[in-house]
């Protein structure tokens, strides 16, 4: 019974790439290759369908799967219509070079890391306690109510379930539960290796827009291996961290390879950023940092162009969070995210202990190798460190690091909170450092080629 419902639950997730397909079938996205486009379609579909679920709840319509998928598909079709039908002067560039022995080794490591993550999830060794605490119960409640049940969310006894948290992950879980007829607890656990596999499928083609095929495979191997290792050691299977990582890493990878003046990659990145904002609270500072730094480094020729690019990058996040907070306000549940106190009420004296505890937390997860190795690779990359493609992900990583620290020192004693969360929320910093190292290396290689 559990096995069969688990199968149906997982199979229902195929609705997401179907819904996202109209957008990703646009010829502008051929450059990324078929496997990356399928993953992007899944992300776009998950975003669009979740937005439809929020809007349906706002309108008081109970969730019905087929209409929800059809409207989500129509939304992706609408997004496609804002793109020019043909992109002149944008030939599909094949990924540079052959993988060679290094690339094949990277591929073997990716397969090994995915197999390990699959085994960790299957043996229930990587399951997040938060699945039982709030992601799972919320999904059960939403699927039973066929909506974001305001009665359940407004119950003071359920305050520990972070009522205002953005709803993409429980919405996706509830979608699967409606399709399967029940909520199979191992289904969400299986999303950990699945989303890691999605990352492995999408990254090489996306990174090859600005790096050699060999280097793109190596960076993918490092990201998949470190996310797999940290995911198991920090127990993230079944929570929202794998989805958040997927959306965030892909958004940055797309922006790093986005040619100046082309709307399609920025729109795709905007949808991925929207999905990140819809997946977890930390998604919002990520969206603001990634979108702003991208606009700064690729400034448009005029105000109109910059505004247009800003709308593509930030529009999906604004639309989603606008709808979610409208739901919270209309039902008297929340008007913003829960916080650890007023914005500027910080405890400066907590800074040393916060820094020390963060360092201890990262060190306890595999000697912090997932952070120190890419940092060392970045520093070894020569002149390329000063390139825009190295500075961009590094700046986003630094901003997030400062933001997390700023959040922690809102508590007089943040030790416990850091112990629970630092390893997980700093995972994105590890992946961004890999992307920065790749950006720096490819810039150095281009310099060398130019100078003969």
């Amino acid at each position, binding site marked *: 019974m559990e096995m069969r419902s688990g199968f149906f639950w997982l199979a229902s997730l195929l609705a997401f790439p179907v819904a996202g397909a109209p957008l990703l079938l646009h010829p502008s996205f051929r450059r990324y290759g078929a496997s990356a486009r399928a993953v992007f379609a899944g992300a776009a579909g998950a975003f669009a369908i979740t937005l439809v679920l929020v809007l349906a709840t706002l309108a008081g319509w109970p969730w019905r799967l087929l209409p929800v998928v059809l409207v989500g598909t129509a939304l992706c079709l609408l997004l496609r219509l804002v793109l020019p039908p043909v992109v002149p002067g944008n030939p599909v560039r094949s990924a540079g070079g052959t993988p060679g022995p290094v690339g094949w080794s990277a591929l073997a490591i990716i397969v090994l890391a995915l197999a*390990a993550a699959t085994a960790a999830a299957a043996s*229930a060794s990587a*399951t997040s306690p938060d699945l039982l605490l709030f992601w799972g*119960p919320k999904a059960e409640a939403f699927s039973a109510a066929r909506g974001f049940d305001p009665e359940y969310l407004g119950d003071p006894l359920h305050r520990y379930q972070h009522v205002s948290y953005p709803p993409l992950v429980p919405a996706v879980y509830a979608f699967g539960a409606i399709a399967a007829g029940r909520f199979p607890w191992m289904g969400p656990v299986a999303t950990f290796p699945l989303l890691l596999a999605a990352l492995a499928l999408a990254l090489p083609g996306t990174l090859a827009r600005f790096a050699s095929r060999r280097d793109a495979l190596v*960076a993918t191997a490092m990201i998949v291996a470190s996310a797999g290792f940290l995911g198991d050691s920090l127990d993230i299977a079944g929570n929202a961290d794998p989805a958040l990582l997927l959306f965030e890493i892909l958004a940055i990878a797309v922006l790093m390879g986005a040619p100046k003046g082309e709307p399609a990659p920025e729109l795709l990145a905007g949808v991925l950023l929207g999905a990140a904002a819809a997946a977890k609270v930390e998604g919002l500072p990520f969206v603001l940092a990634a979108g702003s730094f991208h606009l700064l480094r690729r400034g448009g020729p005029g105000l109109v162009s910059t505004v247009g690019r800003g709308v593509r990058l930030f529009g999906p996040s604004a639309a989603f969070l606008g709808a979610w907070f409208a739901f919270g306000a209309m039902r008297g549940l929340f008007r913003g995210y829960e916080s650890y106190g007023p914005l500027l009420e910080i405890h400066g004296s907590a800074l040393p202990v916060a820094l020390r505890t963060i360092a201890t937390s990262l060190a306890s997860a595999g000697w912090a190798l997932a952070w120190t190795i890419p940092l060392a690779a970045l520093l*070894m990359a020569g002149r390329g460190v000063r390139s825009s493609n190295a500075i961009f992900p590094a700046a986003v990583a630094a901003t997030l690091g400062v933001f997390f620290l700023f959040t922690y020192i809102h508590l007089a004693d943040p030790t416990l909170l850091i112990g629970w969360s630092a390893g997980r929320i700093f995972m994105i910093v590890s992946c961004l450092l890999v992307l920065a190292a790749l950006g720096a290396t490819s810039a150095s290689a281009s310099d060398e080629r130019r100078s003969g």
Partner: protein
Amino acid sequence: MSAPRGSAPIGLLLAGAAALAAWSVARLPPPAEILRAPETPYEHSDVRYTAGPTFLFLTRVGPFVPRGATVTIYEEPRDPGRDGNLFEAGVALLPGRRVLPAAQWGAFTPEDEAAAEYVVIQGTGPAVPPGRLVGALEKGTIWRRHRPSPLGSTSR
């Protein structure tokens, strides 16, 4: 002939990826354990000794507590932290029932506990039976109260 400058950082990333992938494999449970379907989603996780038995116990409690009923869960001997965890697990694993806390935020909540129609006790049996015994499992018992109190202030 010198290696291109990009080789060193790429080599380091490749070595790091190999080390972390190998470490991931080394962390796995024995192969026989991986191939066997786990009884709970927490069978080999860091919280296996707390979440695992509770998950198993509460999924077996389900048939004894009808949908729509109010239920409270606690452990004998009593501990507010543990009872709070049991409440949260009950909300997850007894869907369709109104789970009332025997403790929350590290403190007992006697008003809420007394308002439940059903009482689930993990661990040894209670000194004073809270009602009529409706189920006995290996890890605990399920009781139905004769006359529950009106709902407490937090759970109304």
